[in-house]
């Protein structure tokens, strides 16, 4: 994969998170095809997970966690075909196709039929560049959401397991977005999509009018180089409003509703070499479209990453999430109405192109009621705490 100046700018717009930027610094292992500007890349993501104690009927419901307890897992194989728009041309054009194969494709749930499948389209868009001002970049088709600190690709996140903030965000949209670099320190993205997604080509009607669409926008501030150790720090704000019929987008009762999602997040370098910190706040409100919506979910998270040596890095995340929304089975969408989660990850890159890390995650139901455990299918939860120890091995090509 090639990374041009605009990619770097868009990374600053919050599309690529703190650790993802760290990966982007490495030499990519993309594969050039006979069509010279097109690249083939991707990764194979595997894990082994131990959920301490007995009973997996109720596990922490963060994204991509389902069905992975106490065993070996293929998470996903991702293939990317990519030809970025040539920004040296006034009317540059390109495309990107991200295909997911394996169990996580089910969890992403972009299938246009709405059925579960081991094959999913994560992104598939045409990229266009128009010579308007500093250059206007369009994506038309299916693309990743513009909201959030973490991303769908676990290898680009500081921790293997996802945050609740990510879990309540929409992952993908079908529509059109435009990105513009207003100045070196300020960039913006606006877009319109069919729905909150992630189901491809989904429609809001007949529940809503045929003209009812989902709208999204974001602003990113990037600290200039003259600010010393703070140079490169970013602050991003996003908002998305539209129709959400999917249980994967969070704060959803299973009946479809209008949803507004807010996000504020940033990453910050520190005077300590190798130490970066970050923070994220996610909010999803249903129907009332305000911070006091009829149903809501929100999460605040803090991140710290420390690159101890060339190969060794440590990553920590602390999170507090609340929600009053229930699943169709009347279970809190976060497992409990209040959740505290702490995650510690030790990454040691022993093999070239391989991400190998060990992670410990503790989820605590702070609402006072059990949220985890239980053995038989449909069994009531019996524990207030969940402890997970896992190993994650991914090959990135």
């Amino acid at each position, binding site marked *: 994969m090639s990374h041009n100046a605009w990619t770097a700018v868009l990374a600053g717009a919050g599309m690529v998170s703190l650790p993802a930027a760290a990966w982007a610094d490495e030499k990519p292992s993309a594969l050039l095809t006979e069509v010279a500007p097109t690249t*083939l890349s991707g990764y194979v993501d595997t894990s082994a997970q131990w959920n301490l104690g007995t009973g997996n009927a109720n596990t922490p419901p963060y994204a991509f966690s389902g069905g992975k307890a106490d065993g070996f897992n*293929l998470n996903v*194989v991702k293939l990317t075909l990519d030809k970025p728009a040539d920004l040296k041309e006034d009317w540059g054009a390109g495309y990107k196709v991200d295909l997911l194969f394996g*169990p996580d494709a*089910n969890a992403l749930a972009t299938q246009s039929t709405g059925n579960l*499948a*081991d094959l999913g389209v994560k992104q598939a868009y045409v990229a266009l560049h128009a010579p308007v001002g500093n250059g206007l970049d369009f994506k038309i088709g299916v693309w990743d959401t513009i909201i959030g600190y973490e991303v769908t690709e676990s290898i680009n996140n500081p921790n293997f397991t996802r945050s609740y903030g990510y879990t309540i965000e929409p992952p993908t949209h079908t529509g059109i977005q435009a990105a513009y670099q207003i100045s070196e320190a300020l960039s913006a993205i606006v877009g319109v999509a069919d729905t909150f997604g992630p189901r491809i080509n989904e429609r809001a009607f007949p529940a809503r009018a045929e003209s009812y669409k989902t709208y999204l926008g974001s602003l990113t501030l990037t600290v200039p180089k003259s600010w010393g150790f703070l140079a490169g720090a970013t602050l991003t704000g996003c908002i998305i409003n539209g129709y959400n019929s999917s249980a994967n987008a969070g704060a959803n009762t299973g009946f479809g509703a209008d949803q507004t999602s807010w996000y504020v997040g940033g990453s910050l370098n520190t005077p300590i070499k190798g130490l970066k910190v970050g923070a994220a706040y996610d909010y999803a409100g249903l129907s009332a479209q305000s911070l006091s919506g009829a149903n809501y979910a929100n999460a605040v998270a803090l991140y710290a990453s420390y690159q101890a040596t060339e190969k060794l890095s440590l990553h920590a995340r602390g999170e507090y999430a609340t929600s009053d929304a229930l699943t169709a089975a009347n279970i809190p969408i976060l497992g409990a109405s209040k959740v505290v989660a702490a995650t510690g990850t030790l990454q040691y890159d022993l093999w070239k192109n*391989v991400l190998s890390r060990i992670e410990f995650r503790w989820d605590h139901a702070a609402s006072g009621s059990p949220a985890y455990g239980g053995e038989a299918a449909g069994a009531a939860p019996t524990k207030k705490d969940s402890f997970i120890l896992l190993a994650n*091995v991914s090959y990135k090509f």
Partner: protein
Amino acid sequence: MKYNKWTVALAALGVVSFASAVNAEEKASPVMTALSSTTISGYVDTSAEWNPGTGNANLPPYKFNGANKADGFNLDVIQLRIDKPLDEQDWAAGYRADFWFGPDANTLGTTSAFANGGSSDFGIRQAYVALRAPVGTGLDLKMGVFDSIIGYESIEAGNNPNFTRSYGHSIEPQTMTGLLASYRFCDCLSASVGVADTWNSTINDRAFAPVNVAPYGPRTEAESYKAYMGSIALTAPDSMGFLSGSTLYAGAVNGFADVSLGGLSPNPATVTSYYLGATVATPVTGLRLGGSFDYIDIHPLNNDIWSLAGYLSYQATEKLSFHARAEYFKDKVADGLFRGALFAATPTKDRAEVVALTATVQYDLWKNVISRFEVRWDHSASGNNLFGGTVGGTPAEKNSVLLAANVIYKF
């Protein structure tokens, strides 16, 4: 595709069978990418079948056979492989992703438990990260989804001497999700051990509740219950003359399974599969022999299911080769159930016994193309009708004859 010395060594482990080794000697035709060590390869597998006589309701139940393939033209499968093999470094790393598209992907049955076991024209055959640790002569690891370590034949038709599969292959475990370690003690001795979620092919399957895969229902084992596997391979050294390169292979896999072979009760159960196989070079140029024995023990049942097969391949010219297989298969699950494991839908008194002979002529007329004709005869040796008829479960014949043409393009 590149084959380094370790790949050759692992081939001796039996992961690559006799016939696949023959194919491996041919020049591969991958689409090379700019990152030279990574390749894209695969094949398109098509066939045409004629089942003489009328009635396809009770066909021989070997793997990848079915009514939808009888008396017609078939797309079998398209395999796409993206692969970066291990190189010679101490801490080498690589990966493999094998994707299947087409009818055989349904039979592959690897669709993840997340999708509740539903079948699809898309399937993942393998998807693993390969790692090497510099322990002794080098310890090779695979983590993810990988082919079973036992068996003479491959699920890849083009790597087998015959197009149709044996009954032995049909009762073996096929795909594992777990961790596999392989080690080569010396030129003539290598071994593999591994642990996986289950004996089943379903990706990310579990032996315990609340995993609940249709149509078998909830699992019942403890959360720590896993499948374990091991194998050992002996390879004849160069000093043994014409026998040089011959292999003797033994392996076993034990774990939780749905026992989908048979739709039996109790269901699911723990099963153990045993395999013993050998390939032998001969003094006759181009002639190779092989043999295999497969046995499956379904623990709760008093079953007697096993297969014994002999193989013969003769490379007559650069393009022309002959391949023969003779197999005896006994399929007795339990007294009083009146059905077998593969012959589940066929009333067979108390067992099915089958003799199957397969002969294949392969002539590689086109570059990168396997083109072959095959005749297969399956005979009920137990005196019962096992084949034919127009109603499922009501066979009308003791014999089944198949004529098939198989054309595979490997890229």
